[in-house]
């Protein structure tokens, strides 16, 4: 399983890539594996403003629906319409073509989030509990 070094990770299994004042948000490879085949995606509209930790959409597999939470605060500047159209992208390339939204950051504080090594450890611990 991949845990790219340039990303920050949330406990609810989203990743965020910070590039200047723009944050790209998606779900991790671990999350898409847990969900199974993703068949439906609901995302907010451009212009929506979110606090960090707020629900911004849902992702559904055949069996289950999961909420998506923004790891960082900001205003939605772009939504991955192609992923909404074909959510299989989340399974195939969760760190690339399967990105979800871009936010204009209201703060660049990511101290609540984990780095790649921290997240990898977190996933391992979580799966051992089950």
């Amino acid at each position, binding site marked *: 399983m991949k845990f790219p070094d340039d990303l920050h990770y949330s406990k609810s299994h989203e990743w965020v890539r910070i590039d200047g004042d723009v944050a790209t948000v998606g779900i991790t490879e671990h999350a898409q594996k847990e969900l*199974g*085949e993703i068949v439906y995606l609901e995302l907010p509209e451009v212009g929506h403003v979110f606090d960090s930790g707020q629900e911004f959409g849902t992702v559904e597999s*055949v*069996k289950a*629906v999961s909420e998506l939470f923004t790891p960082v605060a900001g205003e939605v500047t772009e939504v991955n319409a192609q992923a909404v159209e074909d959510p299989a992208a989340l399974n195939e390339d969760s760190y690339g073509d399967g990105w979800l939204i871009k936010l204009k950051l209201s703060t660049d504080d990511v101290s609540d989030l984990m780095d790649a090594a921290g997240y990898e450890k977190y996933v391992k611990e979580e799966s051992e509990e089950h």
Partner: protein
Amino acid sequence: MTTAAAALKRTPLYDIHRELGAKMVDFGGWEMPVEYSGIREEHRAVRERAGLFDVSHMGEFEVEGKGALAFLQKLTTNDVGKLAIGRVHYSAMLTPRGTFVDDLLVYRRGEDRYLLVVNAGNTPKDFAHAREIAKGYDVRLRDASDEYALLALQGPKAEEILAPMTEADLPAIPYYGFVEGTVSGARAIISRTGYTGEKGFELYVDPADAPRLFREILDAGRAIDLLPAGLGARDTLRLEAKMALYGHDIDDTVTPLEADLGWVVKMGKGDFEGREALARQKEQGLAKKLAGFELLDRGIARQGYATASASGAGVVTSGIPSPTLGKSIGLAYLPIADTAIGTEFTVDLRGRAARARVVETPFYKRERAS
């Protein structure tokens, strides 16, 4: 994932599921494979070729004795008097209120010998219920669930895969018929039944033989690209075929009449548990009924979601994105006045009102009946 893994029961095929990379889930207290290669891929395999399921978690009760027929007539709603040796029928066990204790299959194996197949999670409850009814009948009732493993080989190519492995005359087995023979040398009840809406067989075998048979069938099916299939595909397949699932579409709060399963209730056969309540309900008329629907808007209507139609509120009991139809389909209890084909209503999809329409069921029907 709240139940401790140690508390879950496992079928004799558990190690094979792990080896095949299945994702395992808690289903009715059993650690079962939900998917191997993906629910939709497994679903398509069953519709187009074949899939192999482990459903060994199901419960089996053996019923024997001079009073077996009278007992089963009292216990279940279908007419066991019309069930010939070598045939199976779908039936229900009801509470005195006429609601489901469970749905089940009844196999007639001999003059006074029957096999009942019940839902895994209901097995202890069903057995207690059946034992209570059995008092006063000359019958031996035994929970033999641990003595049967159950493999379901389903799909248009199922017969082609199974035929070289058995001496049984498969084409001679009618739909909802069975024979007792062998598969690859192992004793088996070979039953032309299933929970997918597709042709196929269910094989009741000794748990000790199950792993070898599962592997041999997988090998035999390799040429036609048979896939091992999990409970996820089983659910999407059964829903397309509009087969009820206990705990979703039916439970002890609804009657077979409300569940649109009136055909398994034979009021004319004499007394059975729950009959009076159903007679009363027939007289008074139904307030709600289970109806099939498709979503007209995007989304998936899941169990528990509220519906709003002209005559009032209802509730979704099952909902999936149908792999065969490419639409979002489901079942819901709707006010009886709103169950006519074509009626439109809305489903509350987590705060968003999605439009839905009552449609004909089953959603999917295989082309040629057998």
